[in-house]
């Protein structure tokens, strides 16, 4: 029999319904695995007691025939989601002691659907990072290692690195992530799992620690496209408490998954082969993906998204600008860290608290953002970036208006890299998000699906981008890729 921790959500739901095992057993198996693989540092705050209590409730609900769509499914919750009575740090020292007296809308929906909280997942500080190395609680570790090089630990990607590591490491059946410029898709690709950044406005942002409000979106991370769709259904929905939450109906994502891609037009943007050259290996995996979709009955067409190369610099003005304002509330007055020495003024307290509470990357972005908004520079930076953002969104719109149903690209320009390799060079680190950021700027849904292993034996994902609120087509195409790729490789950590 398959280990309980290896089950997909779909399989676990069937097993629970059939009484093959209980939610408590399922949760216990995961808690044991979490202890065994504590070295992944995937969790900042494990919540074993709460998990068992929730599992018990799930068992009762299953018994009473009242099971929700995620009933008894143990998940990791990214530590950016405020959880009532459970410490929520955003990966930062400044929130190291913060216990929210409220529950985020998305997490509340998941608990309503029956999900079980295993713990709060590690992440880059305030979701700013692409490697999980900016976490104040130590980096999460990618369960994958390079073939023949088991001693070099690799980053899980970021910012939802703890979530990805937990799902890939079988210490969570699924996890929530948030994606601002690639924070779900890039770690999903690095860890060989599926991750969906929904359309901006699909999931409520209420109760999620804000990084960049115009870009942040919550989404599911799981091991299969179907699991991702199931979880997506539980997370999505209009929330009157979030003015940017879209008042649109939530479709049955899981039902859409198996509809196939026959007749779909798949756009292949030529600009995703940057001038510097995409590594031939990634290029080949991309080509494989095109072939898989064609074999499944789709048509691939070349498209142009001319402003692609400007997406990253645009993003690195808009996101830090919004962050510099969003993070102003961490001032040592109402919650979190306070550094106050005898004789300090209010300003001293602000400056010391924020210097001690924020890490280097967060400070870097706050300063860049502050500068970009400051008098005399607003037009040249922020306003310019918002104009280029319009052009980027128009590129996508033109492609979809031209009849393309979905766009296929690599998720990342490379596979997972060793811890410490890029941390000292911000711009190189930023380039990790080169393929995911344009989608974020345009607010479109993007799905990363693991398709192949690189020659180093590391997973590589491809990204599917859809029309606004058309996650269904994206998931359909993702399922087609998944089926064709037959990606069954597991991290060596788990084979040992």
């Amino acid at each position, binding site marked *: 029999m398959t280990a309980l921790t290896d089950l997909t959500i779909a399989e676990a739901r069937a097993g629970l319904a059939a009484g093959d095992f209980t939610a408590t057993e399922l949760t216990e198996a995961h808690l044991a695995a979490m202890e065994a693989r504590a070295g992944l540092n995937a969790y900042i705050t494990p919540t074993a007691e709460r998990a068992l209590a929730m599992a018990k409730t799930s068992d009762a609900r299953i018994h009473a025939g009242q099971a929700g769509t995620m009933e008894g499914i143990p998940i990791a919750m990214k530590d950016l989601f405020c959880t009532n009575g459970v410490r929520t740090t955003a990966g930062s020292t400044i929130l190291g*002691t*913060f*216990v929210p*007296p*409220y529950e985020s809308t998305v997490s509340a929906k998941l608990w309503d659907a029956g999900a079980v909280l295993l713990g709060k997942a590690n992440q880059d500080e305030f979701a700013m990072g692409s490697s999980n190395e900016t976490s104040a609680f130590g980096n999460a570790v990618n369960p994958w290692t390079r073939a023949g090089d088991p001693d070099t630990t690799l980053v899980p990607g970021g910012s939802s690195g703890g979530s990805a590591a937990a799902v890939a490491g079988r210490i969570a059946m699924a996890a929530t992530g948030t994606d601002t410029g690639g924070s779900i898709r890039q770690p999903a690709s690095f860890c060989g799992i599926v991750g969906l950044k929904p359309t*901006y*406005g699909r999931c409520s942002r209420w109760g999620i620690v804000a990084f960049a409000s*115009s870009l942040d979106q919550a989404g599911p991370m799981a091991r299969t496209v179907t699991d991702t769709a199931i979880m997506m259904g539980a997370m999505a929905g209009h929330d*009157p408490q979030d*003015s*940017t939450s*879209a008042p649109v109906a939530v479709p049955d994502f899981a039902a859409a998954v198996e509809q196939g891609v026959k007749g779909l037009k798949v756009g292949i943007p030529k600009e995703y082969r940057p001038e510097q050259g995409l590594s031939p290996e990634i290029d080949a995996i991309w080509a494989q993906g095109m072939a898989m979709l064609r074999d499944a009955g789709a048509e691939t067409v070349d498209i142009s998204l001319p402003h692609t*190369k*400007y997406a990253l*610099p*645009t993003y690195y*003005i808009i996101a830090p600008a919004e962050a*510099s304002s969003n993070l102003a509330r961490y*001032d*040592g*007055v*109402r*919650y*979190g*860290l*306070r550094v*106050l020495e005898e004789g*300090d003024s209010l*300003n*001293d*307290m*602000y*400056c*010391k608290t*924020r*210097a001690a509470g*924020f890490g280097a990357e967060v*400070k*870097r972005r*706050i*300063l*860049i953002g*502050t*500068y970009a908004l400051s008098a005399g520079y607003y037009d040249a*930076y922020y*306003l*310019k*970036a*918002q*104009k*280029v*953002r*319009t*052009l980027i*969104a128009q590129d996508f719109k033109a492609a979809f208006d031209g009849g393309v149903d979905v766009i296929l690209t690599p998720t990342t320009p490379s596979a997972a890299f060793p811890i410490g390799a890029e941390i000292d060079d*911000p*711009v190189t680190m930023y380039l990790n998000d080169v393929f995911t950021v344009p989608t974020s*700027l345009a*607010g479109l849904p993007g799905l990363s699906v693991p398709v192949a292993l690189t020659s180093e034996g590391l997973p590589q994902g491809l990204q599917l981008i859809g029309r*606004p609120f058309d996650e269904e087509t994206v998931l359909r195409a993702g399922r087609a890729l998944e089926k064709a790729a037959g990606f069954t490789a597991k991290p060596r950590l788990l084979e040992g």
Partner: protein
Amino acid sequence: MSLDKETVHRIAFLARVAVPDDQLDPLSRELSGILHWIEQLGEVDTTSVEPMTSVAEMTLPWRDDVVTDGGYPERVTANAPESQDGFYLVPKVVE
């Protein structure tokens, strides 16, 4: 655009982040590097392009004018580093 030490100092104070003097130089080099990279945006012709206001194609929702919230000072101050009698406490502000 490269940032000099003084500008970094000014920006850091605007953002209320203490930066030790010996870090001003390396930080200004680092930030200048990022800004330099960002400035490739200058190549894009944005004449008569409207800045993006929101990717969400919807209108701003309104709430009704009824009291639905508040009345829980203990929840509001539960995480405060320093509070007394329901107030937050900060170093004395001299106006």
